[in-house]
């Protein structure tokens, strides 16, 4: 029997009702979803927001919207609570562990808000499937993350750069837009719940940035690692939304050049 951190690493994410990712729906479940929201491709916050904006009266669309976001809140409870345990084995400040505990509780509150919102629409957790984010704290997702980031996702520096700063930074726009939608259609509960989440997300991003700065302080190699995984993470998201920026292209062109120089210029290094 290993330490709690070792045991947690191999334990999959669990929830009651269990995670039901949209990618693995049966034919029958898929048809049921399509009858409610059109196509499976519509099951994402941005499309659902536009659909609600076009038809305020369809309460199913609101349930689907909250369901598409709440998967990430449950995944957040799972992911941040793992960090509280696992990061005790890393040389990080104790305040960072406390910050992760606080974030776990924040995600619990966000999940509670989502449950309350769904109930107000006559819905419940499990009625709609989970988005890609659902149940991704376990070992399988970790291997995928490692491949995507080209670095160790369990390293606090890597996790903070990608989850706290890059992902939660981007989530600010999602929460703001959802809160605005609530204001636009006169749904005060939707407006206030996501305004509340937005405020927490600002704090999470600030926490991430603060500790990344601490870990990287005076260490350009660590800072480069943090930048590199942040860029990879953002490139992946931008690839999904088609909003690739020129700066990210430039960053990876520079990375390639640096790599080529490192490989092509070891004449001096080898001689040394």
């Amino acid at each position, binding site marked *: 029997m290993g330490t709690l951190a070792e045991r947690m690493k191999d334990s999959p994410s669990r929830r009651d009702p269990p995670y039901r990712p949209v990618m693995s729906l049966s034919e029958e479940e898929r048809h049921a979803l399509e009858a409610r929201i059109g196509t499976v491709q519509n099951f994402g916050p941005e499309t659902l927001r536009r659909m609600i904006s076009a038809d305020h009266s369809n309460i199913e669309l609101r349930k689907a919207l909250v369901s598409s976001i709440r998967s990430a809140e449950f995944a957040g409870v799972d992911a941040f609570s793992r960090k509280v345990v696992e990061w005790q084995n890393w040389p990080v400040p104790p305040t960072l562990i406390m910050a992760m505990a606080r974030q776990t509780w924040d995600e619990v509150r966000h999940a509670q808000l989502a449950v309350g919102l769904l109930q107000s629409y006559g819905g419940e957790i499990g009625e709609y499937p989970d988005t890609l984010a659902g149940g991704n704290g376990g070992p399988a997702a970790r291997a995928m993350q490692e491949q995507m980031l080209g670095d160790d996702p369990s390293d606090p520096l890597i996790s903070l750069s990608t989850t706290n700063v890059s992902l939660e*930074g981007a989530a*600010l726009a999602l929460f703001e837009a959802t809160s605005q939608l609530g204001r636009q259609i006169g749904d005060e509960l939707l407006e206030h719940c996501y305004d509340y989440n937005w405020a927490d997300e*600002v704090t999470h991003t600030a926490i991430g940035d603060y500790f990344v700065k601490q870990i990287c302080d005076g260490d350009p190699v660590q800072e480069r690692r943090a930048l590199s995984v942040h860029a990879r993470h953002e490139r992946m998201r931008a690839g999904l939304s088609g909003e690739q920026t020129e700066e990210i292209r430039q960053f990876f062109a520079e990375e390639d050049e640096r790599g080529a120089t490192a490989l092509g210029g070891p004449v001096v290094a080898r001689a040394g």
Partner: protein
Amino acid sequence: MAFTIDLGPCINCGLCRRACPTECIHFFTTGRRTHVIDPAFCIDCGICAKVCPVDCIAHDPHYVHEPSVLAEAKQQAKAWARRRYERDRAARAAAEAAVRRLNPALASDD
């Protein structure tokens, strides 16, 4: 005039960078984890300051633009706005079509 970021309170969320119509806010290519505005390409639109969640972006009243660079930046911003408008219009039309398929009564209202 141009805008400038106070690096002390900046939390590197990247909202300003992703909202900038001239992509003149840099992060990955600064060599450091800092968001920096290239004032030469800042068209003074103020979108960055508006979206900043910690209010750390403000006017730099001392910056003087080189007119030809500013004109180029404004052209870039117009192209960006056009792209965004077209994309939003297409997405809105797709969403409207989707809700009409779900609720045929909406189609007959049109």
